[in-house]
């Protein structure tokens, strides 16, 4: 016999009650765990993906849309900007570097991004196989793209307009896979990288291809295959890194007021988005806390009412030599084991649900979510649950401590 065995037997004697209490608590904990996993990973992704980007410049429109489109590649472009204007901005004295992006096409839901090698180095992307894209219509695939589309080096494919899987296909020009990147845990994993002029080619309905045959005499800073004086070519956006802190004050204002373009700061827009999302998360979190509170109450009631049934047991145990503190300890342990098990199950359940979600839904995989990481908050939850257990069993334990053996035994 031992305290643990005794408690285990009491649990077994009230399977349903014990099970329900554990279930109730674990549901609340699972919900909080899921929120923690989502929030933390989303935040990590967001900071990772906007690292090195101080400002995004694009066509006028919603600044949030511009950020979502140009940094996270989840929304449609706000429009295009003239290459000549972008070039001028790239040469601005407050700009450390500027990376051009030309968007518009996708393959099986994965976006084709026309850009240069500065973009892949921004995310420290490494080759897993093959080579970097170099000539027009050559592409290098992000790791998730390669995994989900099963494209290999040397394969040809046609892109479709827009971001959907079944957009209108451009069948005139086929892309060829030149290389595949290693997994970087950033948005690059989900992108198909190519040159800017490839994207133009796909959309070359009106503009003549003739200019691209000979090398330009004074090439554009951003796209070297084009004359700097070109007034027709357009790109979608420009990712900018400031040269110094003064730029943060001057550059956005300059762009927004003096040019036809719009500048948006990823940090600012993300903070705005998070306060918007935060309301929903807070509501869910509140609901989870209500669940936990109810389960705490239910554990308290269970312990308290079982105490009535067990007053005889306790008096008998005292008559067999059990000390007051042993009874106290037993009840406290009972409560805390209950909450500990409930919390552990809840944590496991939260990870499991995310794991299943990531496994079954392409979106989960694309978003780069994983169920295999643990956060410090989870340890806090575990400790907090044990504290909750101790708290809920405190009053019943004090009652057990005070049980009057003589009265209980004589009253039969």
């Amino acid at each position: 016999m031992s305290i643990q065995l005794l408690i285990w037997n009491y649990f077994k004697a009230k399977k349903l009650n014990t099970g329900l209490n554990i279930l109730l608590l674990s549901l609340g904990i699972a919900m909080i765990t899921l929120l923690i996993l989502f929030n933390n990973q989303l935040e990590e992704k967001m900071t990772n993906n906007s690292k090195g980007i101080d400002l995004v410049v694009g066509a006028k429109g919603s600044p949030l849309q511009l950020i979502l489109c140009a940094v996270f590649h989840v929304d449609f472009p706000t429009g295009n900007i003239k290459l000549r204007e972008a070039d001028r901005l790239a040469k601005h004295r407050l700009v450390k570097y500027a990376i051009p992006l030309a968007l518009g096409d996708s393959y099986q839901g994965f976006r084709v991004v026309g850009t240069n090698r500065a973009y892949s180095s921004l995310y420290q992307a490494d080759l897993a196989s093959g080579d970097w894209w170099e000539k027009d219509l050559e592409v290098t695939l992000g790791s998730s793209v390669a995994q989900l589309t099963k494209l290999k080096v040397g394969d040809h494919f046609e892109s479709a307009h827009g971001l959907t899987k079944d957009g209108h296909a451009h069948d005139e020009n086929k892309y060829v896979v030149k290389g595949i990147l290693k997994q970087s845990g950033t948005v690059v994993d989900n992108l198909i990288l190519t040159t800017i002029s490839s994207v133009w080619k796909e959309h070359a309905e009106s503009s003549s291809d003739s200019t691209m045959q000979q090398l330009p005499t004074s090439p554009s800073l951003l796209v070297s295959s084009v004359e700097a004086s070109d007034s027709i070519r357009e790109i979608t956006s420009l990712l900018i890194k400031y040269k110094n802190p003064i730029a943060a004050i001057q550059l956005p204002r300059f762009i927004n007021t003096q040019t036809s373009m719009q500048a948006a700061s990823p940090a600012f827009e993300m903070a705005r988005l998070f306060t918007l999302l935060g309301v929903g998360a807070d509501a869910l979190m509140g609901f989870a806390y209500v669940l936990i509170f109810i389960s705490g109450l239910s554990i308290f009631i269970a312990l308290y009412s079982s105490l009535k049934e067990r007053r005889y047991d306790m008096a008998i145990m005292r008559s067999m030599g059990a000390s007051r503190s042993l009874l106290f300890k037993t009840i406290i342990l009972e409560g805390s084991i209950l909450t500990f098990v409930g919390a552990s199950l809840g944590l496991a359940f939260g990870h499991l649900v995310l794991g299943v979600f990531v496994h079954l839904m392409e979106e989960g995989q694309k978003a780069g979510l994983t169920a295999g990481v643990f956060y410090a908050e989870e340890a806090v939850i575990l400790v907090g649950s044990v504290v909750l257990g101790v708290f809920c069993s405190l009053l019943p334990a004090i009652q057990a401590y005070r049980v009057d053996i003589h009265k209980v035994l004589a009253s039969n």
Partner: protein
Amino acid sequence: MIATQGLTHRYHSKKGVLSHEIVFPDLAVERGESFLLLGNSGSGKTTLLHLLGGLLRPLTGKIEIEKIDIASLSETELDRMRGRQIGFVFQRNHLISALTVKNNLLMAPFLAGEKQHEERVDLVLDELGLREKKNAMIFELSQGQAQRVAIARAIINKPSLILADEPTSALDDKNCDQVIELLNKVAMENNAALIVATHDHRLKSRLKNQIIL
């Protein structure tokens, strides 16, 4: 083994005005002796047993167990003493219903802080004819069997004093005979002092030594 001197106890009624005082005769019981504690309902039998077992503190008087005045013991020492030296048997199944027969018996050495020997459990159960009930749950036992398990639990730690409060009043004649016989037998075998409080007339002929309240 156990001796009392000038023992009295006072109960205060709820309203606190009336108080009820019980004066107990002095007694001295040695190991291997068995006594019947007789008295009408309300005469104070249960009260006396609880005083002797240290479950209740007396108003006046002295209780000595193995020459130690139990008033001098702290609460924890009293718990220890109770666990090691005294075995209680109560009127009704005061067994822990969440546990099996075996674990109910093992609670005694566990709570007394002694080694738990399963052979001892087997031995005691054999002696009380409960061998096949070792792994049974308490609700699977008859009244008589439950009372025998209670006796088994009372003697498993080889106590020097066994206090039984109405151990037979819930039993029919056959079980009553069996239980008192067993109680007497195991007490003698373990060289323990036995005090049985009862108003059960069926027992009067069974034990010679009698204390009347």
